[in-house]
């Protein structure tokens, strides 16, 4: 869209038409960022959306050389964060200058410039709102021909007025499409869940019928009654795991979302698992490169991630060792858990994070498991902008690596 050919009003009308005709949020926001950048002759433009589940701004469209994905807490610790908290539109003539003349709370995080090798000069921010609710923030950086003026801010505000409406409009379509997909996934999930729950019930019922109908096999009684108890325990654990997975999939955080030191959190889980590992004769160790690595995460969710990943390593290792390593890699905090356990067959690796899926060698082993844990773990990690990687060889062991975005030191207050 060549806004340079048109005056501001024509540009805005054409933008309006394009936004209302498009129901794909990503596409709409790309157009907005492009128009904002071109019309205001800016070097960079970013459109952020509010993620209510984590109380963060997530970059949804960027023009200019910026990292693919930016997540910022909705706090005054950044310019866009301040805009989202206060709902104010503003021009900052010099990001490195004295910002207290605009507002004492205003703060510019220079670490982003360092990461992206960019020098921010002047900045404009405006919230995108709909019916009084802030849905996002539009931010433009560095006027090419001249610094941004208050008249430029008015143009940006006009764009943001329409963005709020278009976001709401596109979100409705997106929600409907997602609902249809979720209904199909729910049906599939229900079918598998019924099968998994019914299996221990059916087996227990058949074993009790055997005990009733074939009393001439007393030698089987002790064995079968023990196995009935085991299957009922298995079902109880499965129900707990399913309820936990349902909580995770609901998207509502399991605990408070806050800044957590994963070194301290991992040490707690390490101590618990050390006892279990010792009972099995396993060697367990933890290597930490730094005393503090802060991430923004859901407290109970992080506990679930650590107990699953570290617990599985101990559970599926018969002899040898389990090693935990924490380190910083660029903008990531990395938790790496490696073991010398049964490993995972290559054919099972792509399916391992599916609900109720257990690797073929795990199913054949006598090691109990529901196949539910890893699906929830992956879901939580990705919800907070992280990723889970796996390397494994059958009969040699596995390495699970959890990457979580580091919480910037300048945001901690």
């Amino acid at each position, binding site marked *: 869209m060549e806004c340079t050919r048109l005056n501001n009003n024509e540009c805005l009308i054409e933008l309006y038409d394009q936004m209302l005709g498009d129901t794909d949020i990503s596409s709409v926001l790309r157009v907005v960022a492009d128009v904002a950048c071109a019309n205001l002759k800016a070097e960079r433009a970013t459109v952020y959306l509010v993620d209510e589940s984590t109380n963060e701004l997530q970059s949804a469209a960027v023009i200019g050389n910026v990292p693919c994905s930016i997540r910022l807490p909705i706090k005054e610790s950044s310019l866009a964060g301040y805009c989202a908290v206060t709902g104010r539109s503003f021009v900052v003539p010099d990001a490195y200058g004295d910002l207290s003349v605009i507002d004492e709370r205003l703060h510019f995080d220079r670490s982003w410039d360092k990461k992206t090798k960019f020098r921010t000069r002047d900045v404009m921010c405006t919230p995108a709102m709909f019916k009084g609710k802030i849905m996002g923030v539009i931010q433009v950086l560095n006027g090419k021909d001249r610094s941004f003026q208050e008249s430029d801010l008015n143009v940006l505000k006009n764009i943001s007025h329409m963005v709020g409406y278009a976001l709401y409009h596109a979100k409705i379509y997106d929600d409907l499409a997602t609902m249809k997909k979720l209904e199909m996934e729910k049906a599939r999930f229900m*079918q598998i869940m019924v099968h998994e729950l019914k*299996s221990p019930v*059916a087996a227990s019922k058949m074993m009790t*019928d055997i005990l009733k*109908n074939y009393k001439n096999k007393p030698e089987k009684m002790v064995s079968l009654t023990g196995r009935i108890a085991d299957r009922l325990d298995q079902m109880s654990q499965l129900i707990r795991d399913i309820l936990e997975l349902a909580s995770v999939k609901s998207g509502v955080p399991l605990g408070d979302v806050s800044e957590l030191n994963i070194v301290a959190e991992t040490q707690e889980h390490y101590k618990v698992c050390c006892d279990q590992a010792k009972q099995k004769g396993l060697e367990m160790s933890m290597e930490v490169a730094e005393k503090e690595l802060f991430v923004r995460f859901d407290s109970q969710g992080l506990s679930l991630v650590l107990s699953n990943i570290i617990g599985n390593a101990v559970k599926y290792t018969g002899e040898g060792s389990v090693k935990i390593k924490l380190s910083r890699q660029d903008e990531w905090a990395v938790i790496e858990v490696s073991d010398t356990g049964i490993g995972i067959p290559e054919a099972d690796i792509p399916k391992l994070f599916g609900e109720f899926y257990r690797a073929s060698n795990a199913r054949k082993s006598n090691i109990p498991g529901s196949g539910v844990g890893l699906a929830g773990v992956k879901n939580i990690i990705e919800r907070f902008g992280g990723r889970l990687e796996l390397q494994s060889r059958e009969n040699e062991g596995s390495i699970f690596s959890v990457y979580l975005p580091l919480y910037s030191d300048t945001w901690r207050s």
Partner: protein
Amino acid sequence: MQDGKYVVLCIDDDADIRECLQIILEENDYIPVLAESAEEGYRVYEETKPDLIIVDMMMEIADAGTDFTKKVREHNKNIPIYMLSSVGAGLSMNIDYNEIGLTGILQKPIDNDLLLSLLTASLK
């Protein structure tokens, strides 16, 4: 048949279900042969040439039982094959008996008397 007794192949990834079937069949003068996956089941089928097959629907993959049945039917149109289902009669109605070549579907938990009457009807 072996030694005058009918051979029944039971394929299920649940060890407890396999043991229950083994006890029921042995106590009623059948010879059970067991397998824990469709892949193993096909190997055992070719080795033992059973008189009847009982196969679980969902094993290593969701359609393991139906895939196994179709494979057997390519060469053997006559052997009775019963599928075990955990997902209920409503959901298992998605399966077209005739298209796959099943003789019938049994819901888990398998009723002892029902199983014995089906075996009698199919074999004797």
